[in-house]
């Protein structure tokens, strides 16, 4: 499928989702679907850096919260509408991703990972000390009860998140099939070899870090209006990070569809389990699934499907198997 056709296809899926949401009478389902779509964006964004380039970001929470709080603050200050807040949050978080990447990604990948993990603590420190957005007391976000065209505000938020999800998936798929994406895959397979073959390694990594961070920030921008009350402890919940890591790894990291599968499966499961059991237990299940999948099914559900359909992956033809072989070689 060409990119143009895929965009058309993705938009149709989006329109179908929004249309379906209009007919749902119980608003809870739209809330739940928003949650799942938000994770489609986060997981896809994570995968652009984690799956395509092989740099693990444990700072999803930080990026999401920067998007969330910048939107809340700008809305309080200038009363900007969400469609204006989303690109601002995206640019801001893209810049944070770029700076983090520039400072740490030049070294071993694991330093980037640790720095992103520490970033959440630092951003939380700043937000807790920032009185304008309520500090640790939190901040109420007022939203109009009615919006034109969509009727309820929840339907409007759902529409915005659908647009973001479609945009994120289309971006990820376009990257995967572009020269840029091949460059990223080359870095993932063997960074030294890629650099030797003329791939501008640092530049590509930084662009990927910026896109990934920017998308996470955009997903955070509508969140204060979804929650109507924001405060640091829940905004910096590790659940966002663990989910955005678990979803691509459970779904499969080498293709755009993997994070989508993971987000839909794990997101729906968590929504169901939050209602049926408790939210702590469902997070425990996500953690367990993450550990089980990385051990038992390292290529996720996609890998399971592929190995069932075909024969044993051959390093000569299968880029995934080739990746495993080169990773093994470089580790020795």
């Amino acid at each position, binding site marked *: 499928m060409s990119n143009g056709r895929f965009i058309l296809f993705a938009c149709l899926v989006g329109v179908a989702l929004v249309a379906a949401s209009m007919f749902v009478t119980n608003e809870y389902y739209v809330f739940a679907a928003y949650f799942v779509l938000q994770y489609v964006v986060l997981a896809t964004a994570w995968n652009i850096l*984690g799956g395509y380039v*092989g740099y*693990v970001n*444990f700072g999803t929470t930080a990026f999401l919260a920067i998007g969330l709080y910048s939107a809340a603050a700008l809305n309080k200050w200038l009363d900007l509408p969400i469609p204006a807040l989303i690109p601002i949050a995206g640019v801001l978080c893209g810049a944070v991703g770029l700076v983090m990447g520039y*400072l*740490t990604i030049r*070294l071993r*990948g*694991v*330093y980037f*990972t*640790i*720095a992103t*993990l*520490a*970033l959440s*603590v*630092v951003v*939380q*420190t*700043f937000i*807790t*000390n920032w009185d304008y957005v309520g500090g640790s007391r939190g901040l109420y976000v007022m939203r109009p009860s009615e919006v034109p065209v969509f009727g309820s505000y929840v339907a409007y938020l759902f529409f915005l998140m659908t647009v973001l999800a479609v945009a994120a998936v289309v971006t990820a798929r376009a990257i995967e099939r572009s020269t840029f994406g091949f460059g990223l895959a080359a870095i993932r397979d063997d960074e030294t070899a890629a650099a030797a073959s003329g791939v501008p390694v640092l530049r590509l990594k930084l662009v990927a870090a910026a896109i990934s961070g920017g998308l996470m920030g955009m997903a955070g921008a509508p969140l204060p209006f979804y929650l109507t009350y924001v405060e640091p402890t829940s905004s910096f919940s*590790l659940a966002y*990070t*663990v989910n955005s*890591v*678990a979803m691509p*790894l459970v779904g499969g*990291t080498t293709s755009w569809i993997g994070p989508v599968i993971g987000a839909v499966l794990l997101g729906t499961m968590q929504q169901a389990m939050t209602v049926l059991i408790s939210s*702590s*237990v469902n*997070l*425990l299940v*996500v*953690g*367990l699934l*993450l*550990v089980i999948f*990385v*051990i038992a099914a*390292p290529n996720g559900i996609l890998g399971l499907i592929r190995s069932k359909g075909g024969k044993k992956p051959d390093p000569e033809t299968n880029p995934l198997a080739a990746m*495993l*072989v080169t*990773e*093994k*070689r*470089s*580790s*020795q």
Partner: protein
Amino acid sequence: MGQFAGLLLDSIVSGVLVGGFYAAMAVGISIAFGMLGISNIAHPALILLGSFIAYVLNSQFGWDPILVGVLATVPFYFLGTLLYSAYEIAFERRGTQLIRGLAFFFGLLFITEVGLQLVFGVDYRLVETPYIGPSYNIGPVSLPVRMLIPFLASVLLLIGLQVFFMRTFTGRAIMAVAQDKFALQLMGAAPVRVKRIAFGLSTATAAMAGAFLIILQPVEPSMGRDYIGRIFAICVLGGIGSLPGTFVAAVIVGVAESITATFYGPSWSPAIAFGFLLIALVVRPAGLFGRA
């Protein structure tokens, strides 16, 4: 002495004491990450597990937390060897430790944290011992015993480990596996076995650090992640795999945090370690005591 100088001196002393304790928390990472190249980000969660074991045995049977910490090193050692075996089979052998290995430890961190939350709730827990209350005062400087004991115990732990690494065959083999796995094989030592012992040791230190932590302050299950940045900052700053470096870096971070807390307010101190981490990574990734 002016009031400012007194405050400064007091915050430096308490920074040194807390820093010594940070060294006990960081030494496990120094071994696992620095010597073995295993990014065990679940270490802080294991420290919290150690704290809660000390809490349970202290509140149920009145055992001393330090004693519990020392006893718990045995099960923690075996837990560590088990974890390493799983890690080795699932990731190192396949060569996927970079992404999936990290995700594995992250999942472990999360499971431990949520598991502790399910069992103990989100309330702060503390231990009761005679030495938690009192405090010595020398001029403007106060020396709370609850900080003095973890500091001294941490120093002993680090000295013990350093002697082990320098003087024993196994200790030297662990240092060697960090440098050249292949050469170690030629010397007749099995790298996987050596690494398993080292990782067990690294995990065992978490039991003691956990006991020190709960003496120093009340604990709550999700506290561990606040320490991740701090611990790795200390390891990187100290120079990967160097125990004296880890100690010096821990004291530097402890003093910097304590001064910040005294003069700017404690809510800012978590950002300090991150600043150190970034500066260390940008300016000198080899750390203060590392080989460049």
